[in-house]
C-alpha cells in the first residue's frame, strides 16, 4: 500500500470515527460540558432562573461552609446513612449470593425472587414502605406487636428514620448486588477451596483467606458504587419524609433540591453540587490509592 493511500485511509477512518462518535460528542458538549461550565459560574452567583444571575463570588460557598445549619445537617445525615448502609448492603447481598451461588433444585426461582425487589421503582417502593412503616397499622409494627415488641414510630422518629430507609434499601437493592457477587463467586477456582478443605480449613478461614481476597475486585468496586449511590440518595427521603422528622432524613441531595426548586436558590444548589462532586471524587481516589492497590496486589498472588 502506498504511503499516500494509507494516509487517505487514515484520514477517512479518522473522519468516520468522529462521525460515529458524533451523537455522544454532541451530547457531551451540549448536555455535560456546557452545563458543567455554567454550573461553576452559577455557583458564584445568586440566581433564581427567573431573574438574571448576580455575581457574588465565593459567598455561596462561604455561606454553606460557615453558616448554614441545614447544610452540615445534611452532610452528617448523608455520612451516617452511607456508613450504615454500605456495609449492610455489601454483607447482605454477599450473604444472599452465597446462599444461591451453588446449584440446587429451584435455584433459578430463588434467584428470581431475591432479585425481584430491585425492579420496584423508587416511587412505588416509597409508597409501599410508607405503608409498611405506618406506626400503628403498618406490617412491621403489627408484626413486632405479635412478638410482643413495641415497634418504634420509624419514619416519625429522628432516631429511627434513617435506619428505616436503610432497611428498605437493603430489601430493594440486595438482590441486584447479589447477581454481581454470584458471578464473582462462581469465578473463584474450585481447587482453591478443595486444597483448603484438605488442609482442614474451616468456613471462616475459607471466607477470609479465599473468598474475600478472590472477590477483592468485585467487592471493592461494589463498595465504591454503593458509596456513590448513598451520596446521591434522594427519592425515598423526598417522598417518604421530606427531610423530617427534625431534619433527620435531610440528605445532601434533598437539601440541594430544596435549595434549587423550593427556595429557587440555584447558586447555592450549584455550589452544593460541586462540593458533592469533589467529595465523590476524593473518596474514590483515596479508596483506589489505599485499598485499591492492595487488592490488585493480592489478586495477583
Amino acid at each position, binding site marked *: 500500500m502506498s504511503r499516500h493511500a494509507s494516509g487517505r485511509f487514515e484520514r477517512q477512518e479518522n473522519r468516520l470515527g468522529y462521525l460515529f462518535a458524533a451523537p455522544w460528542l454532541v451530547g457531551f458538549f451540549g448536555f455535560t460540558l456546557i452545563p458543567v461550565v455554567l454550573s461553576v459560574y452559577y455557583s458564584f452567583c*445568586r440566581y*433564581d*432562573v*427567573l*431573574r*438574571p444571575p*448576580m455575581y457574588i463570588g465565593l459567598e455561596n460557598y462561604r*455561606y454553606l461552609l460557615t*453558616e*448554614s*445549619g*441545614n447544610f452540615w445537617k445534611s452532610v452528617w445525615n448523608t455520612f451516617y446513612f452511607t456508613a450504615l448502609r454500605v456495609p449492610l448492603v455489601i454483607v447482605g447481598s454477599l450473604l444472599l449470593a452465597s446462599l444461591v451461588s451453588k446449584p440446587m433444585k429451584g435455584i433459578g426461582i430463588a434467584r428470581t425472587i431475591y432479585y425481584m425487589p430491585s425492579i420496584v421503582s423508587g416511587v412505588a417502593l416509597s409508597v409501599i414502605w410508607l405503608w409498611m412503616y*405506618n*406506626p*400503628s*397499622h403498618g406490617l412491621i409494627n403489627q408484626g413486632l406487636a405479635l412478638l410482643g415488641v413495641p415497634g418504634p*414510630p420509624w419514619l*416519625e*422518629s*429522628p432516631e429511627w428514620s434513617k435506619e428505616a430507609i436503610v432497611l428498605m434499601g437493603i430489601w430493594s437493592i440486595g438482590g441486584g448486588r447479589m447477581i454481581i457477587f454470584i458471578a464473582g463467586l462462581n469465578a473463584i477456582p474450585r481447587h482453591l477451596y478443595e486444597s483448603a478443605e484438605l488442609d482442614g480449613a474451616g468456613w471462616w478461614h475459607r471466607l477470609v483467606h479465599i473468598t474475600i481476597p478472590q472477590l477483592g475486585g468485585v467487592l471493592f468496586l461494589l463498595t465504591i458504587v454503593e458509596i456513590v449511590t448513598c451520596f446521591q440518595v434522594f427519592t425515598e427521603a423526598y417522598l417518604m419524609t*421530606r427531610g*423530617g*422528622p*427534625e*431534619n433527620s432524613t435531610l440528605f445532601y441531595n434533598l437539601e440541594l433540591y*430544596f435549595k434549587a*426548586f*423550593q*427556595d*429557587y*436558590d440555584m447558586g447555592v444548589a450549584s455550589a452544593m453540587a460541586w462540593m458533592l462532586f469533589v467529595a465523590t471524587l476524593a473518596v474514590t481516589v483515596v479508596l483506589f490509592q489505599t485499598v485499591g492497590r492492595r487488592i490488585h496486589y493480592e489478586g495477583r498472588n
Partner: protein
Amino acid sequence: MTSSDGAIRSVLSRLTLGVGAGLTLALFAFVRPPSTGVEGRTNVRLWRVTGAEAEEAPSWEWFGEAQDDIHVQKIGLPFLEIEQKFLTAEVGGVPPDAFEYFGSVAQWSTRGALMPLDGFMERDGFDRDSVFPALWDEMMWNGRTYAIPVGTATEAFYWNKEHFRRAGLDPERPPQTWEELREYALLLTTRDAAGEIDQAGYVPGYWSPNATPIFLNWAVQKGAVFLNAEGTEVDLTSDACVEALEWEANLFGELGRDALIRKRASFGYGSQHGFLGGRLSMIVQKSSFVQEIEKFAPDMEYGVSMIPPPADGRPGVTAGPAWIGIPSGAKHPEEAWAYLKFVTSTETQLRVAEFAADRNLAAFFPANVEAANSPQQQSLPHMDVFTKSMEFAAPSTVVPLAHTVFWREYGNAWDRAMRGSMTPRESLELAEREVQRALDDQIEYNRFYAEYLRERDAPAGGGAR
C-alpha cells in the same frame, strides 16, 4: 435446558412480545390527552390547589355558563407540588393563564412571574373597595397590584363535647386561656396501664400528619411582630415569640413528650385523623375543618371557638388570603382577566356563599365585603366565630420575600423545641439567622434586578416610564 423447554420459552416470549406490542399500539391509538378546550372558545388554563377533602364552588363552570367566548380549564395540583410546578411552567414559558393560590404573592411578583393588574383594573373600573382593605397589602409590590384576593382562611379552636362530658367538664365551655387549655389537656388525657396515651386531650402543634405548626398563633397573641416596618429585619427572638414557644414546649413536655410523639405518629388522614377519629379532644385547625368533620365524623358533637389567648395577651389568630393572579407570559391574559373579574365580583362571591350555605360548608371567608356579610355566608356553621376571629387576624405570610425559607425554618425551630433537642430560644435564634440571611439575599437581589431592568429599558424605552 432441553430443546422443548427452549421452544416453549421462545413461543412464550414471542407471545408476550406480541401482546406487549399490541397493548402499546392500542395505548397510542386510543388514549389521548383529555381534550383541553371547547370548540369555538378560547381556552384559559387555571391552576389551583386541590386536596382530597373539600367540595368547592365551581366558579369556572359558572363562568362558562355566563358567556360564550371563553372556557376555563381547571387544573388541580397538590399543595406540596404546586409551587415547584408553577416555577417549572413559568420558566419553561408555558405558564397557566390564571394561578389561584395562597401564601406569598411577593415571592412571585418580585421575580416578575406575575403580571401587574393595574392596567386592567383601571381600564375596567375594578372596585377595590369591594374587598376588605387589609387584604390588598399582600397583593402589592412597588406600588403595583399583582393579584386579587379571593378569600381568607383562618384558624379556630375545636373541641369534642363528648370527651368534655366524660371528663366532667362543661361541654359548652371551651378553655378561655392558655392556662385553662393546659388544665383541660391534662384532664382529658387518659393513659393505659403501660403509660401509653389512650385518648389525647391536646397535642401541641398537631394539625394533620403533614403538620403545619400553629405556633404563629400563640406568638401573635403574645403580641409578637415578626418583621420590622421596613421589611428588612426579621424578629423571631422577641420575648413574645420565645415565651410562646416555651409555653408550647413546656406543655408538650408536661403531657409526656415521647408518649405524645408516639401517639401523634399513630394518627393518619381522613378517619384516621386524631380529632376526626375521636382519639383527640381538642385541636386548632383551619376554618374549613368543619367540612372534614361533617365528612369523616358526621355524628361527632363538637364545638368551635376562637383560639384561647394567654391571660396577659390578647385574642389573636393568623389568616392567609387566597388570591388569583395572571402569570407573566400567559397566552390569554385578556381572557384570564375576564375570569378574574368574574370570580372576584360581588355577584359570584355571593353565589359562592350561597353554594356553601346550601351544602352547609364552611370553607372560606370571602374577601368580598358584601359576600362576607351576606345572610347566606352568616348562616354557615360557626360563622360567628370566624367573623369575630377576622377582627383579630394577623397575616400568616410573615416574611413575604423569603416565604419558603421562613416556613421551613419556622417548622424546624418548632420541631427542635418540641423534641427538646434545643431550648426554644436557641432554636428560634437559629431559625432567625437563616431567615434573615434569606431575606437579605432577596433584598440585595431585588435591588440588582431593579438596576438591571432600568439599564435594559433605558435605551429602548427612552424614559417612557
